[in-house]
């Protein structure tokens, strides 16, 4: 994602699905999903082990060291 390429003092380090990433300070969960091309999909966001409701993703601002899990339904028994 573009943010990672332009690391600056305004960037914070987070973890997404186990991989480290950098995003601009003040980035919301919704903005992160947009940057990853995941907006509008059936993706569930878990932030620091708490489920983030869809209605909350615009207001939820990412903090340094946040750990996100982005999951969806796949085939399974």
């Amino acid at each position, binding site marked *: 994602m573009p943010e990672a390429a332009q690391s600056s003092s305004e960037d914070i380090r987070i973890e*997404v*699905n*186990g*991989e480290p990433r950098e995003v601009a300070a003040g980035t919301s969960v919704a903005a992160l999903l947009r940057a*990853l*091309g*995941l907006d509008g*999909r*059936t*993706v*569930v*966001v*878990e932030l620091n*082990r708490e*489920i*983030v*409701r*869809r209605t909350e993703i615009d207001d939820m601002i990412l903090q340094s060291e946040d750990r996100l*899990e*982005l*999951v*969806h*339904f*796949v*085939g*399974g*028994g």
Partner: protein
Amino acid sequence: MDKLTIAGRELDSRLIVGTGKYADPETMLRALRASGAAMVTVAVRRVDIEHPDRDDILRYLDPEEFALLPNTAGCYTAEDAVRVARMARGTGMSDWIKLEVIGDKDTLLPDTAGLLTAARELVDEGFVVLAYTNDDLVTALRLEDLGVAAVMPLVSPIGSGLGLLNPLNIRLIKSRLDVPVIVDAGVGTASDACATMEQGVDGILMNTALAEAEDPAGMATAMRLAVEAGRAAYLAGRMAKREWAVPSSPLQGIPG
């Protein structure tokens, strides 16, 4: 066929099928439709950030056509299973969960202590819990006591296709529980499904038997018919077994 009702929801089929391991989505959909299933299972996994479309089952599955039953497959602790169940509910699509807490990698047999712990937590949180368990009556009774909506004993290990190994245990569980008993795992072919339904259980969940058949849709048709036949035979009440012959034709009037 008489309807299967779980937690107040009436299903048009006693066969529930999984969506894993098919060669491609089209093959899967043909099999799901041929099975007549009204409910299908799905798993919760991380989105592949580089290829977000790749594994998204909802690109192919219409929840209006098939009710979704998310599972906690791959979880080895109660804590992980509860976490995955919350993720599944986070989709806003279902508060039903097929609870699996696995205890052993080689056999995928359940960790019954973890299963009971997770079942208690999830029932408390308002989930409709369908609990995958072994064919042990006491564990099944404990699960029912905790308030699960259905108990799902295996007839043989997940993906083994070994069929109904212990009909006595399955009949025991069915005879003692009030909640639906849905056999989950082990059925390999149509005769297994029929024999399993003849034990009186309320339904069967299967995945590998369809996905790994040479013709998944063809096997799905066979399974649909077998589940219906087994249910009908159970309801009809089979004849008593005896260890000697009894002629079916009159003994009088034999030309001679």
